[in-house]
């Protein structure tokens, strides 16, 4: 199921946040959504999940218009992992993960065996089974991030949209979380992640969608989009190459003064 963003424009109040954004995202791959602060990355992800209204264009899952889908059907198709990792009540981890099944439950029906199995699988895949009975307020940042990821995975969405999931994680947990998101994409789902860390983006993503000022600067395979020249132009940073095995990563090492 392809996620097709077509000439999308979004206004928040009177401010135009996105204009004429087009991208054809494919499943089985990880797409990194990149751009400087205020480029409209979070808004793009929210618009793709129909959490903010768009003023022009459309977002489609294959031929289906996302905005006009039934909210529950949409929730089953598109999982959204918000930037804000707070859980407002001190609920036990397993109950948090089970929330991912909400769009699959009948109006007032109890969860089925299938729902329990999906929760178990998600907790297994994120290695959070041992946290099941712990209240989320007592978990470390890394543990909580894995529990919240399990929450999205439990819904078994065809598309997973994550908004800056690495914020407040240490490097080892960042690498771990990206590897799990990548694993989900390899299972056949589509994954799009808003990222700030350019190095992690090169490591984890297949494609990159580069935004600036609400417009698409470049979209395509990571190696083609994330060149020293483009990064300098969009982010105003100087990059240095870093050899990692057989891979060559570009690492931001300094700021270029505005011309």
């Amino acid at each position: 199921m392809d996620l097709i963003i077509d000439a999308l424009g979004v206004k928040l109040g009177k401010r135009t946040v996105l204009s004429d954004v087009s991208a054809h995202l494919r499943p089985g791959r990880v797409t990194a959504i990149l751009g400087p602060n205020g480029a409209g990355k979070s808004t793009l992800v929210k618009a793709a999940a129909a959490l903010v209204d768009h003023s022009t264009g459309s977002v489609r899952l294959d031929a289906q218009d996302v905005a006009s889908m039934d909210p529950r059907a949409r929730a089953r198709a598109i999982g959204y992992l918000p930037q804000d990792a707070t859980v407002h009540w001190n609920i036990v981890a397993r109950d948090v993960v089970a929330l991912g099944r909400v769009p699959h439950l009948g109006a007032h029906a109890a969860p089925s065996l299938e729902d329990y199995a999906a929760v178990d699988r998600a907790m297994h895949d994120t290695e959070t089974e041992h946290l099941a009975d712990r209240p989320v307020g007592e978990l470390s940042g890394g543990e909580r991030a894995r529990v919240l990821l399990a929450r999205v995975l439990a819904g078994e969405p065809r598309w997973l949209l994550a908004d800056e999931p690495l914020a407040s994680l240490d490097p080892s947990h960042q690498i771990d979380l990206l590897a799990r998101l990548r694993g989900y994409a390899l299972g056949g789902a589509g994954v799009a992640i808003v990222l700030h860390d350019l190095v992690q983006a090169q490591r984890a993503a297949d494609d990159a969608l580069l935004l600036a000022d609400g417009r698409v600067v470049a979209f395509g395979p990571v190696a083609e989009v994330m060149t020293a020249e483009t990064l300098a132009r969009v982010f105003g940073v100087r990059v240095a190459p870093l050899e990692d095995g057989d891979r060559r990563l570009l690492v931001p090492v300094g700021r270029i003064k505005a011309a």
Partner: protein
Amino acid sequence: MTRTLKLIALGLLVILLFGLSLGCGKVWVPASAWFSGDPRWWIIVELRLPRAVLGLALGATLGLSGAVLQGYLRNPLADPAVVGVSSVAALAAVAAIVFGLGSGPAIFAAAMLGAGGAVALLAALTWRSPSAITFILAGTVLSSLAGALTAFLISIAPNPYAVAEVIDWIMGALTDRGWDDVTLALPPMAVGAALLMLTGRSLDALALGEAAARSLGTRMGRVRLLVVLGTGLVVGAGVAVTGVIGFVGLVVPHLLRPIFGHRPSALLLPSALGGAALVLAADSLVRLAPGAGEIRLGVAMAMIGAPFFLGLLVRERGRAWI
């Protein structure tokens, strides 16, 4: 102990307190005098039974609406007063008293009209943005405006008797409530409670924040409608027959969270039972207090509630999930 066992225990407590509420007062009616020709039995049937039924319904709906509002607003300090419905209902009832529209049914009708008006205003004020913040702001505006207007009405009251009646009514009590009050109040309370019970799953989803809840298929407009209508009906009916009785909705979900867990939907039924238990216990206590008159239930509740509220603020300040 499993959840079912805990619920049964809480239910038994409510039944026990209901029985106690029938038995105690200035005249103690022992169980041996029940269902007999004993004249004390008529004290139960005509005076204490309607009062206990009202206390049960009032406590249950206050506890339930408190649990729903705390879940909806994701704020453990929310209670039915936050919505402003009780203040507006009280304002309308006070207006009815001050302008001498009569008593009993007239005051009830005025309070329900006030609650309905408050609900309509609240819906209108939050129409464009169905978010929790707008809801709190609108409720706060409504309740302070209603408070000011109530004070104004008292200041222009035509005679000291009207003032005394208003003050007597505002303080909130179950004293001398009869079967006609029960028949007026129960239907709106039942409908409102049913609406509130429908919000459980959405409240759980809201624990992840509004955006995540919506991404899970939660329709915020529907939840808001259920919350506004449900609270309007139960709080309006409650204020209409008993005056303003606060703190039940705030205190009860808090007492029960350590026992039933923090998941909002898991707290709805326990909070209804807990609220009923608290009001029945408090109403029995005010009747037993020495002295010629009774302590007003609303006053007693505020005296228990206020220190609790303060302790809550101090203890829970700065915790991650607030």
